[in-house]
């Protein structure tokens, strides 16, 4: 119960942050990526502020031995740079550049983004599930 409520609150705060910062607006994201046009650097401030808070916050959190409601921190340990990482990030960036949508804002927008949000989230989620399923078989 504590876990579910904590995650619900984290989700709400995340969704509120995406909304206040206007990351939820694909057109705003595109105008950030469009450095040769009428450039809108706002999203650099979103990333900068989020990163600063997380950087300091994580260090405070890791002063504790354990999280509040579970028995371990699950932090990715991988340090190797491989082709999959670069290829994956490249492909993700292309999809992001075409649509102005990345996973968080896309999901956050399904209650008000109409058919476009629903089509994007359904397609993305199906792709992710199929990818994971195939990956678990090979």
């Amino acid at each position: 119960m504590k876990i579910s409520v904590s995650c619900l609150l984290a989700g709400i705060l995340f969704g509120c942050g995406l909304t206040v910062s206007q990351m939820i607006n694909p057109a705003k994201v595109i105008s950030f990526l469009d450095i040769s046009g009428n450039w809108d650097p706002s999203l650099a401030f979103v990333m900068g502020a989020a990163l600063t808070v997380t950087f300091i916050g994580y260090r405070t959190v890791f002063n504790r031995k354990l999280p509040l409601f579970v028995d371990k921190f699950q932090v990715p340990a991988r340090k190797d740079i491989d082709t999959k990482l670069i290829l994956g990030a490249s492909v993700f960036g292309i999809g992001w550049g075409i649509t102005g949508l990345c996973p968080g804002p896309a999901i956050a927008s399904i209650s008000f983004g109409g058919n476009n949000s629903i089509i994007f989230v359904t397609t993305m989620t199906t792709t992710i599930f199929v990818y994971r399923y195939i990956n678990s078989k090979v």
Partner: protein
Amino acid sequence: MENFSPISASIGGAMIGLAAVWLMASVGRIAGISGILGGMIQKNDNKAWRLSFFIGLIIGPQFMAAIDPRILTIEFPVEGPFLIIGAILVGIGTQLGNGCTSGHGICGNALSSRRSILATITFMTTGIVTVLLTKVIGGV
């Protein structure tokens, strides 16, 4: 730069950061959306926390709309086939590269992860190039 909004961007960004910190403090998890979503079909994993997070993510914007409904007015630069192609690329890319704007861009970078720093530089670059190419091809 007439739409430049550094103050709301910074406040919103700080809220996203706080959400990521709280998720780590409470349940020890990275706030990477593509990873939380992909884990929904993982075997031997508790799904309740993932589902709770997504419910919050979806209702969150409505709380802000209660203050100002105009905040949920958004615009999609592409629709139809391009939207679908983009969604497939985002889906494959985030799984192949183990993360998206939140997982690598915020959480991973905050952990000073080499993989995340490189991934962020990469997706920012291909995103910028894609927008540039779209304009050239579209003749705008």
